[in-house]
C-alpha cells in the first residue's frame, strides 16, 4: 500500500516537473508576463470594490423564482447558481440579465437585476449558441498555440464575429510559411488539442481593462497591438479580455462559462488566405463543434464536417480592420 502510494507520488512529482518544463519551453516569457498583468489587474479591480454593497437578484426559472441577496461587483451568476443546485452550476452556460442582456457566468453582477440561467436546451437558444460559437473560436486560438512548435512562429490574428449559419467557426492566424498544406493527421492533432482543452474544463474569465494596459499586455503581438486602438475607440477606451488557462485574447464576448461545454469537435480546414510579407502568410482555420451532451449520429455530423470545410464568408484578415469591426457591430 505504502509502496504504491510512494510510487504514485514520485511519478506525479515527475509529471509535475515535466509539465513545468514544458510550460517554460513552449510558452515564451511574454505569455507569463501577460498573465501576471492580468492577475494584477484582476486583483486591483477586486480591491477597488472597497465597502461591499448588497444587491437583490431576482432569479426567474426552475425550480422556482427566488430572490437572492448577493454582493455587488463580487457575486457572479455562477455564485447565484451555486445557491440553487449543482445541476444549475453544471448546465448553465450563460446568464441573461433583466431578460435581455447576455452576461458571462463568471462576470460580477453590478446592480440589482433579474437573472435567468440559460443552457443549450432552452426553447430560444440563439444567444447561447452565439456565445458558444464565439467560445469555440477563442478555444481554437488556444489549441493552435499549443499545437504549433515555436519554430512555426505562429501569431494569432483575430476571429470574426460568430456566424453559425456559415457552418464553421473561424480563427485567422499568421504562419511563417507560405506553403503549408495541412495533412489529415495535422488537422486531427489540432482537434485533439481542442478535446484536451474541453476535458480540462477550464474556467473562462472576463476582464475589462484600459487601453494602455491592453497595449502593454499585447506589445509582443504585432497584429493585436495594431487592432487595439480601433477596438478601444469604439468602446470608450476600454478593452474586454478573456482568459482561459493561460491563453488571453481580445473579444467583445459574451462567452460560455467553461471549456467543458465543448462536446463533439472537428477542426476541418486550414485555408491559405493571402501572403503576408516575404515569408509569412495568413491562414484561416475552420471547424465545427457541438455542445457537450448533444447526441448526433456520425453520418449527420459527417455532413456538417464536410460543409465546414468550405471557405467561410466572414471578412478576411488582410482586409482593413475598421471595416471588419463595423461588420462585427452589424452582426
Amino acid at each position, binding site marked *: 500500500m505504502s509502496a504504491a502510494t510512494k510510487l504514485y507520488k514520485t511519478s506525479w512529482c515527475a509529471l509535475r516537473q515535466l509539465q513545468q518544463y514544458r510550460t517554460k519551453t513552449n510558452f515564451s516569457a511574454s505569455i507569463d508576463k501577460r498573465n501576471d498583468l492580468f492577475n494584477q489587474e484582476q486583483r486591483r479591480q477586486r480591491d477597488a470594490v472597497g465597502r461591499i454593497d448588497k444587491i437583490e437578484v431576482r432569479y426567474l426559472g426552475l425550480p422556482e423564482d427566488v430572490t437572492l441577496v448577493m454582493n455587488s461587483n463580487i457575486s457572479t451568476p455562477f455564485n447565484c447558481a451555486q445557491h440553487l443546485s449543482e445541476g444549475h452550476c453544471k448546465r448553465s452556460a450563460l446568464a441573461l440579465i433583466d431578460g435581455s442582456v447576455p452576461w458571462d457566468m463568471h462576470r460580477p453582477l453590478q446592480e440589482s437585476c433579474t437573472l435567468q440561467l440559460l443552457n*443549450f436546451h432552452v426553447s430560444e*437558444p*440563439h444567444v447561447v449558441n452565439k456565445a458558444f460559437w464565439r467560445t469555440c473560436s477563442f478555444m481554437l486560438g488556444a489549441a493552435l498555440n499549443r499545437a504549433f512548435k515555436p519554430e512555426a512562429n505562429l501569431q494569432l490574428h483575430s476571429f470574426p464575429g460568430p456566424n453559425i449559419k456559415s*457552418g464553421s467557426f473561424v480563427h485567422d492566424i499568421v504562419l511563417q510559411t507560405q506553403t503549408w498544406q495541412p495533412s489529415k493527421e495535422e488537422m486531427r492533432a489540432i482537434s485533439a488539442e481542442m478535446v484536451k482543452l474541453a476535458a480540462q474544463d477550464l474556467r473562462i474569465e472576463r476582464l475589462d481593462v484600459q487601453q494602455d494596459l491592453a497595449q502593454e499586455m499585447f506589445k509582443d503581438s504585432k497584429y493585436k497591438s495594431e487592432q487595439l486602438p480601433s477596438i478601444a475607440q469604439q468602446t470608450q477606451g476600454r478593452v474586454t479580455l478573456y482568459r482561459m488557462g493561460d491563453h488571453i485574447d481580445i473579444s467583445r464576448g459574451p462567452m460560455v462559462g467553461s471549456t467543458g461545454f465543448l462536446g463533439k469537435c472537428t477542426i476541418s480546414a486550414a485555408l491559405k488566405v493571402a501572403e503576408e510579407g516575404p515569408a509569412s502568410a495568413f491562414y484561416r482555420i475552420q471547424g465545427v463543434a*457541438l455542445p457537450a451532451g448533444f447526441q*448526433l449520429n456520425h453520418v449527420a455530423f459527417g*455532413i456538417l464536417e464536410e*460543409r465546414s470545410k468550405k471557405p467561410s464568408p466572414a471578412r478576411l484578415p488582410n482586409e482593413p480592420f475598421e471595416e471588419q469591426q463595423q461588420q462585427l457591430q452589424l452582426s
Partner: protein
Amino acid sequence: MNQADVTKLMSQLRIAVRPKKRNLKNADGPEGRLLKLRKTVTALVKHERIELFYNRADEARGYAELLISNAIRHGDRHNATMELADYWLLEKQLVHKLFKVLVPRYENYTVSYTRMYKAPRDYPGIYYRQSVLELRGNPYPSLLADHSQNRNLLQNVLLDEARKEFRRQKLSDLVN
C-alpha cells in the same frame, strides 16, 4: 466441428449482461435475492416503468429480457416457458399480459425490450445509484426530451443550413 449453434438453443439478449451475478445483500440468502428479483420483474411487467436502485434494476432487467424473449420464441403452448412465466410473475393475471400484450408488441423488435436510464439520487439520502427501468413501447410520455422539434437548437440550425445549401446546389445543377 459438430457443435450446436448456441444462439439456436437459448435466447440471445440484446443487452449487455454482466458475467457474474450480483448477490443483492439479503438476509434470506439466494432465495431472498430471487424473491426480490421476482418482485421487480412482476412490477416491471405490471407498471411498465419503475424507479429503483441501479443494481437491482440492472440485475432484474436481464431476467425480464429473457422471459419476454422466451415467450416470443416458444409461445404459450410450451411447458418450460409457462413454468418460467409462472415463476417470475407473482401476480398470475400478468401471465396473460405477457403472452397477449407483450409478445405481439415485441415480436418484430430488433432492439432490446426494456430500457434503463440513470436517475438522480436524492440528496441527502441513501448513497445507492438510482435508475429508471421501463418496457419499451409503454404508454407514458418519453423521459428524454425531444430535440428534433426545436429548430433553434445548434445542431438543428447547422443541419437546416446544410440542407438548404444542398438544395441550392441541386437547383443550380438542374439549371445548368
